């Protein structure tokens, strides 16, 4: 099964890549290719040109600063994330999640930047990056800007990136002296491995209290969103099983219409959102 024919471009710099995108409105960016190539083989996508950013130097790697803030290059693979001992110290949720993306072969090729730019409704890292309050650096012909992940996902397979913009870095905030508890709970489709529902929770813990809470949900909503009602319900509360259960009960509020397909109805997904939220919060709070 071949994709449709396309023009192939292999730029050697980000500037060259964004210029190619500006000049070829029908072009798509190729990173690891593990969402794009399967779609092209099924002819769900047939871009006239591919801009292969896979060899641009400097886009792959993980830098952790002394304050715990992290810069991850967009071409960093899931396997790189899984193997980073340094990242595991402040942000263990990343290795935990990388270990449940796809399978070993997908993890060797798929990239974090590609996942966020693709914005698949069943991706794992979209939810995790929302919970971590991450932001991305986007570079286009007009310059560069920082986009909080909160403002990145705007629709099904749709981001707020301009057509000539490429994500070059993912930024995680400084941990500083904060105590962060975090967990990702995924109900994977047994055949595809994609998230039927996935919930990422990050709690800033002050003593026994949830000082702040961020929850990202994937699989159920049209695109990954924050469960703000559940966040608000738990913020400022003592971290008890009861408080977590009450927060989880309102986890679907504000997520909009939920996805339904032959495998899982919207009602079932709503149930899974509540269950996965409770599990993720429980583990993030250190209560499991």
């Amino acid at each position, binding site marked *: 099964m071949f994709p449709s024919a396309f023009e192939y471009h292999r730029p050697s710099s980000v500037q060259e890549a964004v210029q190619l995108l500006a000049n070829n409105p029908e072009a798509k960016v190729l990173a690891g290719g593990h969402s794009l190539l399967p779609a092209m083989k099924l002819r769900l996508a047939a871009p006239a040109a591919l801009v292969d950013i896979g060899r641009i130097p400097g886009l792959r790697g993980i830098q952790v600063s002394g304050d715990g803030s992290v810069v991850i290059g967009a071409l960093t693979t899931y396997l790189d994330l899984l193997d980073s001992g340094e990242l595991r110290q402040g942000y263990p949720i990343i290795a935990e999640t990388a270990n449940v993306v796809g399978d070993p072969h997908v993890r*060797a090729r798929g990239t974090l930047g590609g996942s966020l730019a693709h914005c698949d409704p069943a991706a794992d890292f979209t939810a995790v990056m929302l919970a971590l309050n991450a932001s991305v650096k986007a570079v286009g012909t007009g310059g560069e800007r920082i986009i909080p992940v909160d403002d990145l996902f705007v629709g099904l397979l749709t981001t707020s990136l301009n057509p000539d913009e490429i994500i070059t870095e993912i930024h995680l905030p400084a941990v500083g002296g904060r105590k962060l508890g975090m967990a990702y709970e995924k109900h994977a489709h047994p055949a595809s491995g994609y998230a039927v529902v996935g919930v990422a929770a990050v709690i800033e813990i002050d003593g026994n209290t949830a000082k702040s809470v961020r929850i990202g949900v994937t699989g159920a909503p049209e695109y990954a969103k924050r469960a703000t009602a559940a966040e608000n319900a738990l913020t400022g509360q003592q971290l008890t099983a009861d408080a977590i259960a009450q927060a989880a009960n309102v986890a679907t509020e504000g997520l909009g219409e939920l996805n339904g397909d032959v495998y899982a109805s919207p009602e079932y997904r709503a149930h899974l959102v509540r269950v996965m939220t409770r599990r993720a919060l429980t583990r993030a709070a250190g209560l499991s």
Partner: protein
Amino acid sequence: MAETTTAPAKVAVSMTVNGKQYTAEVEPRMLLVHFLRETLGLTGTHVGCDTSSCGACVVHMNGESVKSCTVLAVQADGAEITTIEGLGQDGQLHPVQEGFWEMHGLQCGYCTPGMIMTGAALLKRNPNPTEEEIRHALEGNLCRCTGYQNIVRAIQYAADKMRG
């Protein structure tokens, strides 16, 4: 008048496959698995599902296991590729291949090249995997005959043998 389209320009690729250097001109849309099977004649790597699910096409690219049906040949330009044909050395089976033989890790054999390449990649990363870790590593490889039991045993056999 009918619209005419010209085929996109071919691209030169060169890669090392099983220790041998190859160079060819390919269409950009050519998948690595087709390059291996059709251009190089290395038909040990199989095409199963064609939708990035089954893992029959797994090869090693720069030391990591990849699905060669989901990599363009142009993306593998300059890479080191190992296929099932290149796994054994000096006429000796690789321990994972031997494990599949000894533990009856196959029936029809269609998934076997991908299973073996996956097992070999796992043992390079993790020489002493638990059964659970082996099963987790096999999540991207489908077998419709064996029920996986003997595939897991074959990889355990190889792990034991490689540890000496």
